[in-house]
């Protein structure tokens, strides 16, 4: 009973004063449905099983806590890559700073425009994958995002898209509380790369719904930026068709609270889905949570989860990863690894790997490890004249390398590797 009361109070406090944004009839209906889901489920509390390792209180609080702006002297990420830039400042689209929303093999619109159009393809996707993703585990914060989001982009890839699309999330207001919702529809045989970069806001709720049709390919590389006090809860819901590819990689620096949920449903045979992530955190106020749920509902598919966390000075890392293989999803190849490198005894890694399998001809494996820097390797490097700080940085990068290798595009991977090297050098 206490839990129900706590949930009800949390939900009521959060929703009081909120009113649903207005748009086209279909959009209003989608938002109202989402709000119904929120009310039915109630917002999460730290007593919820799914939030056992991560306290959602600051994510569900009526107001965002302040987050100081981090003055970053590094240039923009992926600047060497010819890309379509779409800029949001504290969660609001900035047309001035953005490129034209057009490109080869692609249709892009602002979410606000799509949601005020009477007829739009977004209708079949907006909140649809999120609603499906509420089973078997509830994700009320995603439903709240669907209900309240007014900005974001909707992207339809109709062919091989010429250049990556980079959503750049700038943070300028120390109190900003941003909600963004993006849709990506990859048509049959089409291919697109989505990049997301930046700290976004003091508190950021972001959702991405991705539909990959048969033979399509979706590549996703994201870097969650360096502001130390920022909070973020992100959801990625994807439905993956036959012989298609879904690859997502996230690198997270700093932040007091990051919860990245990734919910994939593989519905077509011969599909490949990879989700990977790396994070680096320094200090007792760093908390990073990767929560992944992959459902196999087709034959001969491969899924892969590779997560690496570097934690120091009391930082906390969380990994909850599940592979669900439905009846009939034979020949599933499911792999999951989560590892942490604990650079001191105060840091901690909490992992909950899960397999649930209802087909008999599958190969699924998972592993989770926590360890310190290998002292023998450290001594070996030092005996060759390498300073211990440099040696530790090298070994830490080596630890993260396996996750970075999940990125197909070497230029993007190299850029992230450089940033990591910089971060590690500053935090050695």
């Amino acid at each position, binding site marked *: 009973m206490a839990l129900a009361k706590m949930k009800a109070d949390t939900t009521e406090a959060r929703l009081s004063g909120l009113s649903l944004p207005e748009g086209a009839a279909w959009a209003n209906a989608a938002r109202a449905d989402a709000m119904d889901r929120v009310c039915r489920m109630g917002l999460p509390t730290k007593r919820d099983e799914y939030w056992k390792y991560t306290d959602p209180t600051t994510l569900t609080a009526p107001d965002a806590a302040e987050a100081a702006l981090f003055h970053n002297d590094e240039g923009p990420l992926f600047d060497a890559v010819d890309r379509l830039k779409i800029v949001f400042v504290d969660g609001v689209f900035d047309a001035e700073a953005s490129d034209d929303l057009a490109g080869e093999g692609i249709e892009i619109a602002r979410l606000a425009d799509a949601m005020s159009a009477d007829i739009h393809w977004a209708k079949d996707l907006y909140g649809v994958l999120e609603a499906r993703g509420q089973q078997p585990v509830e994700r009320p914060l995603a439903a709240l995002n669907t209900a309240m989001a007014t900005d974001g982009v909707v992207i339809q890839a109709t062919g091989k898209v010429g250049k990556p699309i980079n959503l750049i999330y700038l943070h300028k207001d120390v109190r900003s509380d941003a909600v963004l919702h993006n849709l990506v529809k990859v048509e049959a045989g089409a291919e697109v790369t989505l990049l997301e970069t930046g700290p976004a806001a003091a508190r950021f709720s972001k959702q991405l719904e991705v539909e990959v049709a048969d033979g399509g390919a979706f590549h996703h590389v994201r870097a969650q930026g360096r502001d130390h006090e920022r909070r973020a809860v992100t959801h990625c819901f994807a439905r993956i068709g036959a012989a298609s590819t879904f690859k997502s990689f996230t690198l997270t620096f700093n932040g007091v609270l990051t919860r990245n949920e990734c919910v994939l449903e593989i519905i077509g045979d011969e599909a490949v889905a990879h989700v990977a992530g790396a994070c680096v955190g320094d200090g007792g106020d760093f908390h990073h949570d990767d929560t992944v749920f992959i459902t196999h509902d087709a034959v001969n598919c491969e899924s892969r989860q590779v997560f690496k966390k570097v934690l120091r000075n009391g930082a906390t890392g969380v990994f909850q990863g599940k592979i669900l293989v439905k009846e009939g999803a034979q020949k599933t190849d499911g792999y999951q690894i989560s590892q942490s490198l604990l650079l001191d005894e105060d840091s901690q890694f909490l992992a909950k790997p899960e397999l649930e399998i209802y087909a008999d001809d599958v190969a699924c494996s998972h592993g989770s490890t926590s360890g310190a820097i*290998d*002292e*023998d*390797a450290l*001594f*070996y*490097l*030092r*005996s*060759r*004249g*390498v*300073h*211990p700080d*440099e040696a530790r940085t*090298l*070994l830490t*990068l*080596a*630890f*993260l*390398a*396996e996750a970075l290798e999940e990125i197909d595009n070497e230029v993007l991977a190299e850029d992230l590797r450089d940033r990591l090297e910089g971060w590690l050098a500053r935090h050695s």
Partner: protein
Amino acid sequence: MLEIKNLKVALEEEDKQILKGVDLSIEAGSVHAIMGPNGSGKSTLSYVLSGKDGYEVTEGAAALEGADLLDMEPEERAAAGLFLAFQYPVEIPGVGNMTFLRTAVNAQRKSRGEEELSAADFLKEVRAKAKSLKIDADMLKRPVNVGFSGGEKKRNEILQMAMLEPKMCVLDETDSGLDVDAMKLVAEGVNALRSEGRSFLVITHYQRLLDHIQPDFVHIMADGKIVKSGGPELALEVENNGYADILAEVA
């Protein structure tokens, strides 16, 4: 070059004395060999010289060209010119062999106030030296020692030595796990580095490496001490009669 005086070493974790007063003086340009039964403390001596954790020097001293080795960090000893070819080279997943070599070479140059080697010069040098040790491009690309055979690991140690050009080279059982051909390669690699200003301490269990690397002096170590020293003929004596005779003689 290297002066070791009455060196006594115990384990840090347990109350166990391993080196019980080692004296050894190696002059510039000479090759000394240490032989001895397993467990006599040969590797411990090499680790203590290079600064590995876990050992406590309870008495004695070790100096490299007059500088107190025991007072330096491992990387400082390396910069001062000490090199240890490990009995068990360490595998480092995720760090490419080439990156490892370049990091080491440049770290040492930097600490000596020299400029870093340009990427092109470095590459040229590595390729030439790797070739003479029959180390192929693939082995240079792979993570350090990961998936290397025993022989490949040992050749990789010699490659590092050739790149770092140390003054004092300690080779700990570099011959173990090598077939005859690999041993020749390693010996040639070592002999190519022999010079007036460079000394070697070759630790080995068997005489056969010393057929290829001719030592100036041979020492027998037993139970943490050097119990007998002599010329190359001492190694032959071990080869012919084993350690038992020598140990009985000095007991």
